[in-house]
């Protein structure tokens, strides 16, 4: 009988330890109440103009929607100079494969469009706070530009998970 109660006690201790560990492992969000989005650079890889603009516009929109920032400034916005706790997002295209919507519709397995972009979240003085490669894809439905929407959503999620307008643990 005692053996059973000891085993149950051990199990309970292990369960509590497992339940508590994710809380302590969650990263502390850096404080940033505003973000400035720089234009997407594509020096090494030739990106069609409409993709570049679509990436930029979707990124601004998604950061406004779900980034968790009080202000989202665009490239060159003079008001960003006075913003407190500003983060500047630099994005550089690292990979681009333009697929075909026709191939996607006909075969359902071929014709995927994908974009890989290196994102750097920097402080105004140029110190890198976070860097990550983010991928945007369209596999089945939608035009090629939909890959830019996918990228923007993922990047906004990264920003939301790592920055907060008030410094706290999530």
């Amino acid at each position: 009988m005692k053996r059973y109660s000891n085993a149950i006690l051990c199990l309970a201790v292990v369960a509590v330890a497992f339940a508590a560990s994710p809380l302590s492992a969650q990263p502390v969000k850096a404080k940033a109440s505003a973000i400035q989005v720089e234009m997407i650079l594509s020096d090494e890889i030739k990106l069609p103009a409409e993709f570049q603009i679509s990436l930029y516009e979707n990124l601004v929109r998604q950061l406004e929607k779900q980034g968790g920032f009080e202000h989202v400034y665009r490239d060159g916005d003079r008001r960003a100079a006075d913003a407190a706790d500003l983060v500047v997002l630099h994005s550089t295209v690292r990979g681009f494969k333009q697929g075909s919507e026709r191939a996607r519709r006909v075969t359902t397995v071929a014709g995927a469009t994908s974009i890989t972009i290196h994102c750097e979240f920097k402080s105004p003085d140029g110190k890198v706070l976070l860097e990550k490669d983010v991928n945007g894809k369209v596999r089945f439905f939608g035009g090629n530009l939909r890959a830019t929407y996918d990228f923007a959503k993922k990047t906004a999620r990264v920003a939301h998970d790592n920055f907060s307008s008030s410094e706290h643990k999530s």
Partner: protein
Amino acid sequence: MKRRKFLVSFAMTLTFTGLTVCSANAQQTSKHGNAIALTGLPGVKDNAKGTLTVESGKLHFSYAKKSSDLNVADIEDVVTGEDTQASVGKTVSNLSMAAPYGSGRFLALFRSKFDTLTLRYRDDNGALHGVIFALPAGGAGPIKKDLLAQGAHTAVVEERAAVSTAPANSSSKEQKQ
């Protein structure tokens, strides 16, 4: 029996496709200046259909009793491009997926060309904006020409001009799009 069913469904799909492709083509060439604001135009929903005109230094997009204007002088870059889109609409395309033997995918082969017009401009605060319009095939060129004539800039012309003047200044070929 199965074969007859297949032939009937195939013939129906083919007829329907022909009709929709014809109507799509007719729509596309009907009116000059028709455009779809794909993204980025302030105060305008994505994929809004309307008409695009350039007059008295302004790019004017009017849609559903509303309108949006951009100062041509604020435009930093104008780029034209080409793309294709499905000739049949979304609803028909989705319905066709229920057609037997995957015959609905046949519709995806029919695509029509369209032009894209991509603009970059800065607002009063110096903030960079981008706008993408979709126009009927051959429609972006004249709009770009009008924009450049009224004071817009384009990186393509400037790059080409730099290339043509740089080597020994011998030829004064200035290629313009």
